[in-house]
Each structure stands twice: as C-alpha cells, then as structure tokens.
C-alpha cells in the first residue's frame, strides 16, 4: 500500500525537509523557485493567482533568476512558454479553469512539439454559469491534448508533484508537457503542515535541462512547427503516443528517486484498504482524504470498503487500475465534473474502459460530486458506498451527491 502522507515514525530520509505551514499555491511557487526555470510566463486567475503573485515576489527579490513574462492572457502565457521551450529553456506556467480553456489551442501545440513545459493547474469549474470554485471540468477537457497529468491530493503532494513533474517532462523518452493538478481552494488556499525541501537538494534532483534541438543553437538551424499533411502527421502523432506511454515508467522512476532521497513515496495509484475490499470507490484529488475517513467508518461497521485514488490521469494506468480492482465486487467512481451527453463521466469512462480491456469487467457505478465547488460531507460519500452494496444499484450513472432535485 502506498499513501501520500508522510507517516510518522518512519525512518528519517537522507534529505529531510523543513516543516512549514503553507497553502498549496504558495508551496508550489516555492517548488517553481527551487527548480530554477529559465522562463515563467503566466497570467493571474483565481484560484491560481497566489502562485503567480508569490513567484513574482521571488523574482522581484532576486530569490530566483527567472525571466518572468507577464503576459496579457493565458493563451499568451502558453504561447510564450512554447517559444521559450523551443528556444531551449526550462519553462513553467500555471492557470485555472477558464484560463486553461483559453489556452486549449496551444496546449496541443506544446505537446505536439514535444516541449517539456510544466504547468500547475489549480482546478476550477468552467463557465457558464461562472464559478471560481473547484471542480475538474477544466482538467477533463484537456485529457486529449497530450499532456502528462499528475493529480495531487494535498499541499505536500502538490509540491512534491511540482518537483517530480520537471524530471518526467524532461526525460528524453517522454519529452512531453506535464500538468500538475491541485484542487482549487481546497489545496491552493488551505494551509497545511508540509515539508519544504532544501533548495539545493531540489535543484540537484531535477538537474540541468539539456534540450536536443534548441532554436538558439544558431550553428545548427532547425525549423520547428513545420507543416505536416497526410504523409507524416499520423507518424508524428504515433511518436507522441509513444512518449506518453513511456511517461508511465518515467512517473514511477521519478517517484522512486524522490522517495529514496526525500522519504515520501508515490505511485501511479494510491490505494487504501483495497487488498480485501468487497466495495471500493475510485477518485482523484483532494476528496480522497474524506473518503479514507468514510472507509475507516465502514470498516468499523464490518463493511470491507476500500479506496483507489488515481494519481496519474494521463497516461491513464489502465492495467494497474484493473489489477488494483481485480478482487473488488462492487466498484464506484466519483467524478467531479460532468461529461454532458456521454455514456458516463470522464473518470468513470476511463475506469470502465480499463476494466473491460484488462479482463475484469465488473459493473461500475458512477456518481457526480462537488461540481462547482459544492462541499461533499462524509455522509454523502457514505451513502454512495451503501448504495454500492445494494444489489438494486445499477452500473452506469447513479446520479449526483448533494444535488437539490427539482420537485
């Protein structure tokens, strides 16, 4: 079993961190400072603003020697990141919901050009209605743009992922952009106890970036972003998918190296009480904390409940998900966004496809929770678990947690 929470009483890691009380956005900004990007281009948007502000302070006070490009929109943020990454620089940005939506065109270009940009995505609902609070509609809408997507649960993990993301993106077998997802407000704005690693240890962990064909190598001019048609486009797409497939190993490799130095171990998945579970929920993000508590409660009542948290949304670890759920009779998936008009919500669809592909075609029931930032108290998750135990509950869409139905 892996958990993302540093367990007390475990042996002291070779490189211990300093305990801090900080919110996720501020701690991620520290990670950005520590990985020493050459260029950061960003545009403030709630709830990401704290990252851009904090990083701007680091620049203003000379705590990091990054060219900060204060662009006029998120589309421009990603556009500048693409230019800088083509030039051969280590590049980062951050955004949320509508900002990500505005970037959409260039998200695919960052990936198609195989640029190892790291973006911190503070998840936020999409308009309309306009809503600044957390859900995963933004993240789900970028799943097919060719970005590796890591999903953290808490402040510590958002920070740790921010550091590992650089290594994953710049791994030459991957060479793809990486999104570091942290839940808007829940993680970005809530203060938690976390460990800040020493600057030099982080700098050493991520190493120097050596681009293969930088634009600024004037002696070896290259043309980047050339025109493809039917004759090459398909092969280039296929190469991109190979990079994505390699990312799975790169995520695990970075996590192993991180664990050996800093003591916190992560995998593609994070399981809780799943080994003997008869009933389990699948989730991403910050809701996992509440769900662990619900699992504990059910266990005390004799229900063999479990939890599977997916940490790597892209590439989706299908085989690993299927293996983890092999023995579970009743499976539920909790989605924090809707897939309007689809067979089911986004995470549900990924889980169903994984189980169907890898020979464990158990019925999978899906619920929508927390959309637009709605709070989901433990009792509602508990109800979903209990519904899973009810033989009358059908696979597919089971509905919404905490919705006020029209009478």
């Amino acid at each position: 079993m892996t958990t993302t929470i540093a367990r007390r009483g475990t042996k002291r890691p070779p490189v211990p961190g300093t305990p801090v009380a900080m919110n996720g956005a501020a701690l991620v900004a520290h990670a950005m400072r520590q990985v020493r990007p050459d260029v950061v281009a960003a545009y403030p948007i709630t709830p990401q603003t704290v990252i851009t502000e904090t990083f701007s302070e680091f620049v203003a006070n000379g705590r990091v020697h990054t060219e900060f490009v204060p662009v006029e929109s998120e589309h421009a943020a990603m556009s500048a990141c693409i230019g800088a990454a083509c030039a051969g620089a280590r590049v980062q940005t951050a955004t949320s919901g509508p900002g990500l939506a505005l970037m959409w065109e260039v998200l695919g270009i960052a990936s198609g050009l195989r640029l190892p940009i790291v973006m911190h995505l503070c998840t936020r609902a999409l308009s309309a209605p306009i809503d600044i609070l957390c859900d995963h509609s933004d993240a789900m809408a970028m799943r097919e743009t060719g970005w590796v997507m890591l999903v953290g649960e808490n402040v510590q993990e958002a920070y740790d992922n921010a550091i590992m993301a650089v290594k994953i993106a710049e791994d030459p077998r991957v060479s793809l952009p990486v999104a570091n997802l942290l839940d808007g407000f829940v993680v970005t704005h809530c203060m938690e106890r976390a460990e800040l690693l020493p600057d030099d240890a982080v700098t050493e962990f991520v190493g120097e970036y050596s681009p293969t064909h930088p634009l600024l190598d004037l002696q070896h001019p290259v043309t980047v972003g050339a025109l493809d048609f039917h004759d090459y486009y398909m092969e280039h797409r296929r190469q991109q998918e190979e990079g994505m497939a390699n990312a799975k190993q790169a995520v695990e490799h970075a996590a192993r190296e991180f664990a050996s130095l800093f003591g916190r171990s992560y995998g593609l998945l994070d399981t809780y009480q799943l080994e003997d579970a008869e009933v389990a929920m699948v989730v991403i993000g910050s809701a996992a904390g509440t769900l662990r508590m619900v699992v504990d409660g059910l266990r005390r009542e004799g229900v063999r409940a479990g939890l599977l948290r997916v940490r790597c949304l892209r590439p989706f670890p299908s085989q690993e998900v299927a293996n983890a759920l092999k023995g579970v009779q009743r499976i539920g998936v909790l989605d924090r966004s809707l897939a309007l008009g689809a067979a089911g919500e986004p995470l549900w669809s990924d889980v169903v496809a994984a189980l169907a592909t890898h020979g464990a075609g158990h019925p999978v029931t899906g619920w929508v929770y927390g959309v637009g930032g709605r709070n989901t108290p433990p009792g509602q998750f508990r109800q979903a678990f209990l519904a899973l135990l009810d033989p009358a509950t059908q696979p597919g869409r089971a509905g919404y947690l905490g919705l006020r139905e029209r009478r």
Partner: protein
Amino acid sequence: MPAALTLRALTAQQDQLAPGHGLCAGCSESIIVRQVLAALGRPAVVALATGCLEVATTRYPWTAWQVPTVHNAFENAATTISGVEAAYRALARRGKVSGEPPVFVVFAGDGATYDIGLQWLSGALERGHRFLYVCLNNEGYMNTGAQRSSATIQGTWTTTTPVGTVVPGKPQWRKDVTAIVAAHHIPYVAQAAPHHWKDLMAKVQKAAAKQGPAFINVLAPCNRGWRFEPEETIRLSRLAADTCVWPLFEVDEGAWKLSYRPAQKRPIVDWLKAQGRFSHLLDPQRQDLALEVQSRVDQEWQQLLSRCGSG
C-alpha cells in the same frame, strides 16, 4: 555590422530563404523576406504566424529556412518570439548561449497582425521585448483564398465581400494598425514596400539596432488575391506609393517622418484599374464609391503629412 546596401554587396550574400519553396510565382513575400534577412547582417531567429509564407516554406520534411525558425499558431507569433527572446536573456545570463545576440524577427500577414493576433502583438510591444515584427500586408486572408481582413480597403472584392447586387464589395474602410502600433510608443515603427528596397532595408537596419520592439508594416502585393499578372508585382508596389494608398514613412523614437513623397500624386483610379479586385469600381454607376476611396486616401495622406510636419 549591418550589410552595406549596395546591390554588389547584397548579391554576394547567401540567401537566408532558399529557393524551392512553394510560394506562388510573382509573390512578393519571398522578395520581402530576403530583403529583411539580407539587411540584418546578424543571425536571425524567426517566428512565423500561420499564413502563406509559413505553409509554403516549411512543408515537412523540407524547409526553406537557413536560419532557426519556429511556427506556433496563427495569432501568437509575437508572443512566441517574446518567449524565445526571454529564453535568450535567461540562457545568456547563465552562460548557456554565447556569441553575438541574434535578431528576433516575426513574419506575419495582415490577418495575423490586424485581426486575430492584434492582442498578442500589443502585449508583446507593451512588454518591450527586443524584436522586429514584419507584417506582410497583402490586404486580405490570401492563404485561405482571398477573404476580407481589416486591412482590406472599402469597395474591395474578396470572397467574403463579393460584389453582389446589393453590396458592392467590402463596405468598411481599413484600420490603421501602423498608427495603433505607434501608439504603443515603441522605439521604431515604419511602413515600407518592396519596390523601394533600399528604403525597406534601411528601415530594417534601423529597427534591428533598437533596444526594444520595432514594427515594419510592408505592403505585400498578391497577384492571386488582387488579380494582376505575376510580373506586375513590383509595379503594383510602386503604384501603391505613388497613389498614396500605401505611404512610406517611419516613426523613429516618436518622430514621424515621410520616407517618400511622390513628385506627382497619382489618382487612385490608377491603383483601382490595375487590379481585378477593383474592376467593379470602374463601372460608371459605381463612380461614387471610387470617389469615396479617393477621398479616404486623400484624408489619410493629409493626416500623415501633418503628423510628419510636412503638411
């Protein structure tokens, strides 16, 4: 050192845009690009907006570019070069790049500049990146088959402003992007045209010597979109300057200066009758429209003269 602007010196240079690209016979864009790159006398790093130049010169697995070149998307070439320039500064500070700094150059059409990319351009100008933005202004979306842009003048036939029984071509005048760019108070802004190569290249050299953003709006005659014979390209360019529909001037550190004043300003009808896209304006029944075009051109010319203090 910038190149000496003599034909002898220029023809001795190696072209930075190789032949074999797919631009149309008679296209002015390859002429302008070669003039710009030859004038620099320093290595260039180029960002292209989506458009004729980009699709015709970067057909994978080939490229016509002898200098590093990047294409990102349609609207964001100015922002792309912002990123490249920021990266250069960061990497130079860390000793990861060395030697003479390159000139960062954007080539973008009027669609990418006047319309879809105006915000991106404005942002990059305001941030003060050191780059030269060259607008290849062929007064329409020629890459997609001659549709209107906000650089297209009133009365023009395009495929989205066809000459119908009710609407006689484009109803609106054009916007003055050169003045909009000048209003950003950047070090150097100019209008140029390829027939006056010495003027164009001198402007490129001035622009490249500036410490901040520079913008040159170059008229790019398009025989396919404008409907004239391919061998007429340079003649059309000269005609635009002589009719004052495309005046040549510069705004150097805020000072407006006329670069060319025709000895005798030619009537706009000379410009109109040289191109198929205006043929309907020669119809005596549409004389009012032709007169209106003349009056807008005169008005803009007078305004320019007064800005240049030569009214």
